[in-house]
């Protein structure tokens, strides 16, 4: 087992000037489950393939443990790409199915027996080693396939969207299984997905990429609570955060008649960058229904109510006197709020929402970076 270090690793595809992966700095701990996530074209798969040796590295270095693997052929890197699926061979025993690749690699018989035995113990397959795959359950077969990767005793597992060919329901239940298997094995794992929910539920830490640049790497909760810029704020969280540009004046952020008190430190930071506006983000659960008379709220016309049983979400649009300006300054075309499921409004209702004080996220309009109070 080992750490993985991307040290200003850069990949520029021939014929393009913009790097697909731009000076990626990322230190993955021994035994960690790290997820690379981002929209399509963000560089997550390229980063994984650079680590696997499938993509050339044009700048910087990649290390596994203390070994510099930047220009090493894939098979010398001590990594295992875990495929979406493996073939099982029906005439071979479970032990042979797990160990045959070692035979090709010239590993001695005794060593193969030891490694297969160890892996079988870890996977609860010890008593099935002499059986044929046919005699096993589906779950056991899948563990035999995993065993094929494990007996190589790799330093790192790499997984590239392994669940993408499953339908949505299976994906949800399978991701927990993979995560718990990884924790049991304790092998450093780098996992790529475009699905932020998958990333948040599986990773010890999640690295968010966009346009070839690492935006933030943190625990799932860290990303949720303290997104380091507007991109991460909008990307992480489902339903997404509400984000809009507010005017800053006299210690308050206003947008039309919506009015939020802001800390003095934010006001001075905004002033320091020579600006009079700030990007304000608030998650759906930070919106509170208020009485119509209460000032400073945002009147919202309800378009859709999503009832999930435990929660309900309102999807709507600004409907007050300043609706047009508010809609213009919103990053998305709707406002999303979590409401009491037992007391959810109807479609077409108008509700006045206020932002729960202290739950706002502030970002610089100039740089998009988070502003800490």
């Amino acid at each position, binding site marked *: 087992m080992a750490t993985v270090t991307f040290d200003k690793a850069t990949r520029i*595809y*021939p*014929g393009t000037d913009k790097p697909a992966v731009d000076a990626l700095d990322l230190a993955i701990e021994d035994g960690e489950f790290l997820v690379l996530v981002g929209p399509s074209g963000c560089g997550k798969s390229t980063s994984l393939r650079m680590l*696997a*040796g*499938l*993509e*050339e590295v044009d700048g910087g270095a990649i290390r596994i443990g203390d070994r510099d693997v930047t220009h090493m*052929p*894939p*098979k010398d890197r001590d990594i295992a*790409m875990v*495929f*979406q*699926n*493996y*073939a*099982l*061979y*029906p*005439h*071979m025993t479970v032990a*042979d199915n797990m160990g*045959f*690749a070692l*035979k*090709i690699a010239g590993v001695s018989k005794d060593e193969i027996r030891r490694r297969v035995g160890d892996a079988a113990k870890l996977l609860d397959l010890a008593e099935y080693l002499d059986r044929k*795959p*046919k005699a096993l359950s*589906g*779950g056991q*077969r*899948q*563990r035999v*396939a995993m065993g094929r990767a494990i007996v190589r005793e790799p330093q790192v597992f790499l997984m590239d969207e*392994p*669940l*993408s*060919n*499953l*339908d949505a329901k*299976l994906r949800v*239940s*399978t991701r927990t*299984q*993979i995560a718990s*298997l990884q924790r049991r094995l304790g092998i450093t794992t780098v996992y790529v997905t475009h699905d932020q929910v998958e990333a948040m539920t599986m990773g010890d830490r999640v690295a968010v990429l966009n346009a070839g640049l690492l935006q933030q790497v943190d625990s799932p909760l860290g990303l949720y609570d303290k997104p380091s810029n507007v991109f991460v704020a909008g990307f992480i969280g489902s339903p997404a955060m509400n984000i809009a540009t507010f005017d800053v004046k006299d210690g308050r952020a206003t947008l039309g008649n919506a009015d939020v008190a802001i800390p003095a430190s934010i006001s001075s930071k905004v002033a320091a960058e020579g600006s009079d506006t700030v990007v304000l983000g608030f998650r759906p659960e930070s919106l509170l229904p208020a009485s119509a008379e209460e000032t400073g709220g945002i009147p919202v016309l309800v378009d859709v109510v999503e009832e999930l049983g435990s929660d309900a979400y309102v999807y709507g649009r600004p409907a007050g006197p300043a609706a047009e300006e508010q809609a213009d300054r919103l990053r998305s075309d709707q406002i999303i709020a979590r409401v009491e499921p037992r007391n959810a409004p109807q479609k077409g209702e108008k509700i006045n929402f206020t932002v729960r004080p202290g739950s706002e996220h502030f970002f610089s309009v100039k740089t998009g970076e988070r502003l800490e109070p």
Partner: protein
Amino acid sequence: MSMELRILAAPREQQALLDLPWDMPLEQWPEWYLVALPRGISRHVVRFTRLGGNVYALKEIVKPYADREYQMLRDLARLDVPAVQAVGVVSGREAPGGESLDSVLVTRHLQFSLPYRALFARMMRRDTVDRLIDALVVLIARLHLTGFYWGDCSLSNTLFRRDAGAFAAYLVDAETGELHNGLSDGQRAHDLDTARTNIAGEMMDLLAAGQLDESVDPIGVSDQVVERYEALWTELTEWEAFDVNERWRIARRVDRLNELGFDVDELDIVTDIGGRTIRVQPKVVDPGHHSRRLLRLTGIDAQENQARRLLNDLDTYAAVTEQQGEDEEIVANAWVMDSYEPVLRAIPRDLRGKLEGPEIFHEVLEHRWYLSENLGRDIGLEEAARDYADTVLRHKPDELAILGGTSAEADTTQPFRITWSDLQ
């Protein structure tokens, strides 16, 4: 929300496809729609059906994957890579109860192709294994030249067609494939490593099943894949340096590539400053040297080795009929009328589905050679053809549409794929 069934395919095939029971999971299709039980290794439900004289393979798969593989196979066809032909994608399927069903990728079954398991149905000899491997290596090199990274190269994902005593390999499964402008050394190495592991596994399984001659060493065979690939790749792409006086070596390099079945469309030649050393590197090589030439001269579509064989016979014909100085195309036309067509006509119609035309012609040439040697006199082509049909071809299995496998219960006889969902 009701979805619309969408069949993306050529109009002629769309019509035929419309009649299939798309509102049913493939697994439940009644047998009368199907030509055979699913065979070969697949992680998805695969079925074969016959429509208007053609056999089609149907694969049930989530829509983005079906669309992607369809596009990939179309791209490969455009690049002239030997692969199965994508016909269409059927999406928006819905069962009568309203639940949605996965899309189906439709490909046309490759006529006269053989899955490797069918070739091993009887005990397989060492030299047959070698020929299979050679065919697969040429396929991998061709794919890599076009920038295609296979990701899951194996015998199972390949179909073989007979090619004048050898085989020609076709890609069947492009699900894991990626098309790039060019491949990195790492991508090629990894593709080869996967191929090696898969092939060794497949051979070991055949050995365990008692379907492989004991003299075949699975690990030796899989090593061979790597060695032969490297040798071929070097020949296709490496710089070669030699003295200015050895310029004939340029022509020899081109000859060697032709011999391997590749045309050289562009050659990079660099002379050093002193002008003593020449370095050459093939820039654009195109596979199918002989089959293209045969097609141009005669209109006969054949595999590479078959074409080589037929062209040799054409040369012999030109010499024997003293037409060596004549225009090539005129001689070729005469050869088709005097040799090729009479041989095929001599084969009874009911035996013509056993092998492809060029393969039959090749076998007749072989047969004539043996027969003439035994009889101590040269016998004519047509006589050889009639004798071949009666004594040899009649006893061969029909190979027009072999779907492979040996058992109805695929799980017990063939490698099978398991997916993450099995973890449940």
